[in-house]
């Protein structure tokens, strides 16, 4: 890891106007979630299921807030229907999810998560980006939020464990 991922993601999100974070705890994103929790003015909503969290984010967006959802990518598997609804009604939800279909996934128990992480976004035609080492996370999340709001589309940001700074 060449940058402080939690601080970078928070800076970029705040710069893009993100003011709410719906989340389910995840080992890779723990430090990111803790950084958001410490951000003044950030509404934090811990949810019980990832799809419930996406639905709450849809409501926040309808109400004029600018939320992100944080989860392990496994939760995308639950969230297909509500993400599809968000697309149909053009209510943008930014998803920040750990894991991807790419390199740096050593554990077999993440196999299903890795399989579906990009598949859900591809299947629904939702744009997404996979963060990589050496890339500015601050700039990346800023641009992701820009596009989501500007184009009224949900947008996924997948963060492999080694980019999130997770030990493995």
């Amino acid at each position, binding site marked *: 890891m060449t940058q402080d991922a939690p601080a970078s993601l928070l800076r970029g999100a705040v710069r893009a106007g993100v003011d709410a974070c719906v989340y389910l705890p995840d080992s890779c994103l723990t430090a990111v979630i803790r950084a958001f929790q410490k951000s003044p003015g950030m509404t934090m909503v811990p949810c019980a299921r990832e*799809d419930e969290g996406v639905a*709450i984010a849809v409501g926040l967006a*309808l*109400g*004029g807030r600018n939320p992100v959802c944080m989860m392990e990518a496994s939760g995308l598997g639950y969230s297909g229907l509500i993400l599809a609804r968000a697309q149909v*009604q053009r209510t943008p939800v930014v998803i920040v999810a750990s894991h991807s279909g790419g390199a740096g996934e050593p554990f077999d128990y993440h196999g299903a998560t890795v399989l579906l992480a990009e598949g859900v976004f591809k299947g629904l035609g939702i744009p997404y980006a996979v963060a990589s080492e050496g890339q500015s996370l601050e700039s990346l999340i800023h641009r992701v939020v820009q596009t989501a709001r500007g184009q009224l589309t949900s947008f996924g940001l997948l963060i492999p464990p080694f980019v999130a700074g997770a030990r493995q």
Partner: protein
Amino acid sequence: MNRLEAMDAVAASRGDAVVITGPGANAGLLYDRADLPETIYNMDMGYASAVALGVALACPKRRVLAIEGEGSFFAGSTVLSTAWRMKPDNLVVLVLDNGVWGTGDGKEPTATSFGLDLLRLALAAGWDAAQVHGPADAAALGARVALALKGGGPHFIVGKTDPSQDLPSSSPNRPRPKRHVLDCAVLMRAALSRDG
């Protein structure tokens, strides 16, 4: 009470509340009786109350009402714990429980026909008993919704209805919202943006 009586009472009590309905007959009945721009109809199964929770958190000056059937609500009932955890005082969740799925021939029993008690489920999720209501008839339901929409929430209301006179989902006589879900979202966003 039957569904029509219940929805007549709810419509009369709505005021200017933001409403998110679940899928099915309640959506069309509300559209017929008390349509406002601040309405999302036919939110997909399991998500009406969660979307309403999000709107309530975003718009604390607005009253927000979720209306779901028991089949949809139970599918997304984890939101009970999240709503109680966040405790928005402007949120009212109303479940109309007729004990059957409102799809197909309308004769497939739901979990409440086999003992599931949604009021007790809310209590088990931590809700204070004072916030959990089970009005017995349409008049009591309307009064409870009106009172709950004055604040002091979150409130969780379950109204039991008799399904014997419900129209099947395939009936051409069943009212349906005449507004696309995209237009609903655009109208709601515009209406809420005027709140500042």
